[in-house]
């Protein structure tokens, strides 16, 4: 990795609207990951102390997880994860 991107300064063409572009990258990435691996958020929320906010967030995350399961969006993750575990001999907690 080039740390500071040295050497790319002159060739670099910045996007016309860098902040909206970077925002789209951040939110788009998070949204895709949320739909592809919703169980990560569900599991994390289950680890938090119970409370009204945690409860509401957990409910929303579980709805998303159900949707992801229904449309098969988390199937690639489950299959690839299993493949990785089989190949390396590792186990999930």
């Amino acid at each position, binding site marked *: 990795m*080039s740390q500071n991107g040295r*050497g790319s300064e002159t*060739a670099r063409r910045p*996007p016309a609207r860098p902040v909206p*572009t*970077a925002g789209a990258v951040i939110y788009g990435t998070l949204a895709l990951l949320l739909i592809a691996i919703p169980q990560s958020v569900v599991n994390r929320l289950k680890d938090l102390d119970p409370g009204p906010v945690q409860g509401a967030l957990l409910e929303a995350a579980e709805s998303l997880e159900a949707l992801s399961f229904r449309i098969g969006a988390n199937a690639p*993750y489950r299959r*690839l994860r299993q493949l990785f575990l089989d190949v390396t001999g590792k186990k999930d907690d």
Partner: protein
Amino acid sequence: MLFPTIEFAVFFAIVFPVAWLLNERNSAKKWFLVGASYVFYAVWSTHYLLILFGSSLGNFALALLLGRLSDGPLRRAALWLGIVVNLGVLGYFKYYNFFVAAMMDLLSILGVRADLHFIEVALPIAISFLTFHALSYLIDVYDRRLAPSRSLVDILLYISFFPHLIAGPIVRARIFLEQTFHASDPKGMRIGASVFLILGGLFKKVIVANYLSTDFVDAVFRSPGDQSSLDLLLGMYAYAIQIYCDFSAYTDIAIGVADLLGYRFPQNFDQPYRALTVQDFWRRWHITLSSWLRDYVYVRLGGSRQGQLATWRNIMITMGLGGLWHGASVNFIVWGLLHGSALVLERAAGITGGGADCGRGALRGVAGWLVTFHFVCFTWVFFRSPTIESSLVYVRALFSGVSFGTTITPLVAAMLVCGGVTQIVPRSMSAGLETWYDSSPLAVKVAVPAVVIFLICVASPNGVPPFIYFQF
């Protein structure tokens, strides 16, 4: 809050848009980022927020005083007051028990039985980095290389800015503060470079460093006397890769995150295991610390201006202190002094450069690389071992007989290869990748980080331990 966590993703997803919405009102943006940084720090410790704030406020006031005073003993005294207070706080939390134990050992050797008190206090996270940032500011103001800031928020942000707060890079005051005078220019944002720094950092930490640590290095260093000499040798290499992937991952992500918020941080690593001399290594490893030590310790001790013996002494003091900065342990001091000795030997032998003079002739280059790489790996044994005794057990076992049994797994071997690849990827390749990314359509820009993080999640271990440099 660790970088590779859901919490940080949510935190950054809130901080990023708010910071840029406030960008035209620069002062509001800075106050917001100070607040966000304090929240980031408070996740670990609310108690020590007071130290963070007190240090910023105290150094802000002292720098203003240094700016007003004319040169003379009073001004010098004010600087020393700042140095003593900053190092005093660091010393109290980090080194007090170490020095008490050393004092008791010394007195017992002299036949005096002393019952000195130890303190039970947790080490405030980030205190070493915080102190070096503060000292950089005070000393630069004293040297009149930097005007004292009249803006409290600028100093609060400089010292607490969350990307560098916990484990660097150590950003010089004058480099950071000049970026706080005006609103950030969004056109200066390097999206491609930032995205690849963050993705590369996540891969190095979550995959390479973690698997090397949990599947191999920890066991080798836990009981070095029970390992084969091959495993001890590979353990040395594996730890070298692990600590590089761990630490450079943190600073890569920090640089990328800061860039996305409109602030530029200096480079902190430059493929250090390519170094052809130990001096070259220190130009590539933790660059912001080594240049800090060079400018604020080595040069102030006289550098190389007072003859050969004084130069060697200054190198040894600087490297010894550099070792001690990493922690209150004899191991870190030994590690620093070993590097200092190598630097002195290189000077004595007339090997001063990194690339040019050592690069002459392929054979000389290969020999320089082999010696430097193995010396650096050898010194990591002292850095990683919990005590000096266990370091010596490791070294003795390494050199006593040859046994070729190994516990290394294919996954660990793959991680070693991945770590090795990070040292040989040409800069032109990553620069080309960034240029391609910056000119690609938005869908590709989103898909690349989504797919890479997805694959990292597929191959990630359960739970991510903290970064090694958090303890420093």
